[in-house]
């Protein structure tokens, strides 16, 4: 039982680490701040939640496990809000989109 628990926990943690790495590669490779936020928000949120869920499975319903789940929920709620604030702030302070971008309706509407 506890071996299987450990194994499943490790699988989730490794998956999470993988997603985190993809997020970081995205941060380095993508051209402008908005595309970078896309990659990092998505990958780092789910990656970190996956690591926390793996911790929960390994530790069970103890002090650590419950806290891990709680942190995952808060992360899911707050991380997109932070990204949203960053993108909006960047656009308001005049950071341009990547020159090859197709369209910017936000600027056309005078924001």
């Amino acid at each position: 039982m506890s071996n299987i628990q450990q194994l499943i926990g490790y699988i989730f943690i490794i998956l999470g680490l993988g997603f985190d790495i993809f997020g970081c590669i995205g941060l380095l490779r993508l051209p402008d701040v908005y595309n970078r936020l896309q990659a990092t928000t998505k990958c780092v949120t789910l990656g970190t939640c996956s690591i926390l869920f793996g911790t929960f499975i390994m530790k069970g319903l103890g002090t650590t496990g419950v806290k891990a789940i709680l942190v995952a929920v808060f992360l899911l709620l707050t991380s997109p809000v932070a990204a949203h604030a960053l993108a909006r702030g960047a656009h308001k302070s005049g950071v341009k989109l990547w020159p090859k971008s197709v369209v910017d309706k936000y600027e056309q509407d005078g924001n």
Partner: protein
Amino acid sequence: MKSKIVLFIIGFLVWSLLTWPLDLQHLIVGLIVSAFVAFITGDLFSQRPHHFGHITRYLWFCYYVPVFLWECLKANIDVAIRVLNPRLPINPGIVKVKTTLRSDTGLTFLANSITLTPGTFCVDIDAEKGVLYVHWIDVKTQDIDKATELIVSKFEKILKKIFE
């Protein structure tokens, strides 16, 4: 008053989970703290507290969670494929989509869902006009109706049943 009670229950629940192995000391402190917080900020918490009593909303929320997690997983795989592809297949732009949601909580959840689903990322909300500005990593259409259909409609239907 109802809003205060709801906030008290939620605050007490979060406190209990934070100090998980339940014991009397923590519960008493938790009762005092959440009562204080609910007393001070309770009125700000929810404009329509009677919504918390509707069972169907919770059922729709239970349906929303797996849908959301599945989309989130797809988004991650999508980003991984784009980032690892040597040609970097992106075609970004900011498009405009419409929404019929009006409540603050509904709009927040919609924006968060859009941010965590494949290829899209919410930049700004105009709540009065019901318009969201969405950064799309692979712009398929610039038309407002088609973009709405592709990005928003999936979640809007569910969120409408939960928050409106």
